[in-house]
């Protein structure tokens, strides 16, 4: 099993509903976020192109954060989801330094926190909060090993990219382009 997410940059309007849905679902401390919206404007005026991306932890298959964790608090859970066990985390910050996407932050309570792909919802058969809240339905979630899952189906028919694949982390967040 390999959980992954695909996000359609052509459909995303950058409304930030995913951000608020996540903050509410996961009780994210005020002022912090586990997912966020990035807008990239590229070109020469007036020929400009804009790409809007809803970003979060890339749940990498070769996660530097899991490798550098000195206590094993950062680990792979089912489906390759990268999780942090708060009462094993010493708050050393090594995983925060190791993430090329800066997807982790230090929770005010001391441990390191990040996107969990809403593993508590997946276990109940629900979609992650960001996916289910998206008003343009631009996000696809599922198991890459299952050819019938929404994420496998969309990746079959659309061109996609991952973010900084050259960092060698094997990210599992795909952006449809």
């Amino acid at each position, binding site marked *: 099993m390999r959980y992954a997410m695909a996000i359609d940059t052509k459909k995303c309007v950058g409304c930030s509903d995913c951000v608020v849905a996540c903050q509410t679902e996961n009780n994210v401390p005020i002022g912090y976020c586990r997912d966020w919206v990035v807008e*990239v404007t590229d070109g020469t005026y007036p020929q400009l192109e804009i790409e809007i991306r809803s970003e979060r932890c890339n749940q990498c298959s070769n996660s530097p954060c899991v490798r550098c964790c000195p206590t094993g608090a950062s680990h792979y859970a089912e489906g390759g989801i990268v999780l942090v066990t708060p009462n094993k985390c010493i708050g*050393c910050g090594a995983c925060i*330094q190791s993430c090329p996407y800066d997807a982790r932050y230090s929770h005010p309570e001391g441990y390191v926190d990040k996107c969990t792909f809403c593993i508590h919802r997946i276990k109940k058969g629900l979609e992650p909060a960001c996916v289910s809240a998206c008003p343009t339905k631009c996000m696809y979630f599922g198991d890459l090993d299952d050819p019938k899952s929404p994420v496998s189906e969309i990746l079959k028919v659309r061109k996609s990219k991952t973010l900084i694949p050259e960092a060698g982390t094997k990210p599992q967040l795909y952006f449809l382009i």
Partner: protein
Amino acid sequence: MREEIIVSGRNNYLIDPHLHIWHWQIPLYLFLGGLAAGILFFAAFFTLMGKENKYRTAVRIAPHLVPWVLVVGLFALLLDLKHQLYFWRLYTTIRLESPMSWGAWVLMLVTPLSFIWSAIHIKEIFPKWDWKFKILKDLEGFFTSKKTSIAWVMAISSIILGVYTGILFSAFNARPLWNTSILGPLFLASGLSAGAAVIMLLSKKHKERNMFAKIDIGIIVVELFLIIHMFMGFLASTQVQIDAAELFLGGPWTAPFWIFVVILGMIVPIFLEVLELRKFKIPVVIPAGLVLFGSLMLRFIIAYAGQESRWLY
């Protein structure tokens, strides 16, 4: 002109606008760890060479500082942790892929060794020292008889400790400035140079001071060579590493790095040490103090600038 503008809605504390999760504690600890490694290495090395009496300060006096240096360093490390009550989790597991885990375990070995080394040479500082209990006297006798073995373990573990202070940074591919294996040997050299400086400061014998001035000159030359190599490597690498090098080659860290680390911390001390060897009277505190200052600044500047270097996507 073709431009790319990236606007992010993320504003996490200590993460944005650029990472600053490691403050003064980590560079201070890396400096003290390197210094401890340097002093212990010279103590072990000259013991194994059978030159204990010739280089008495290096073997028997300077190592008394190491337990204190390590305790202050470990305290700084503890202050850096944000979930401090769980620090013992470091010692419930060994994770071979994590430099932080290596460091924790190496310190677990080096710290007791430094206390033992200090204890078996305590009479050098306090000639009338009495252990009061027989068991402590017996332990001292036991460790004194095993001094050569202890020196071997100390020599190897101090090199691991010195290299680890650099590997801790260089293992992070996400921070392009740190992601160079040169940092391991560079920080080891810087730690050895700092250790030699402390021995020069404490030594009362002219011959011993001269010997360590020569050692220090040699190490600093190696450091300069490694720094040049590091920038050559960066400039021949990918765009993110070219950008990282630019921080020091015209960017905001140019003046602090070249003035504090390279000129004041390396070139001026070499110059003064050479003058000293040519029989000029130079107060030893100036070159030694500058070497220690440069070594500390190297850690601070690499730690802070490294967190500003990143991938752009």
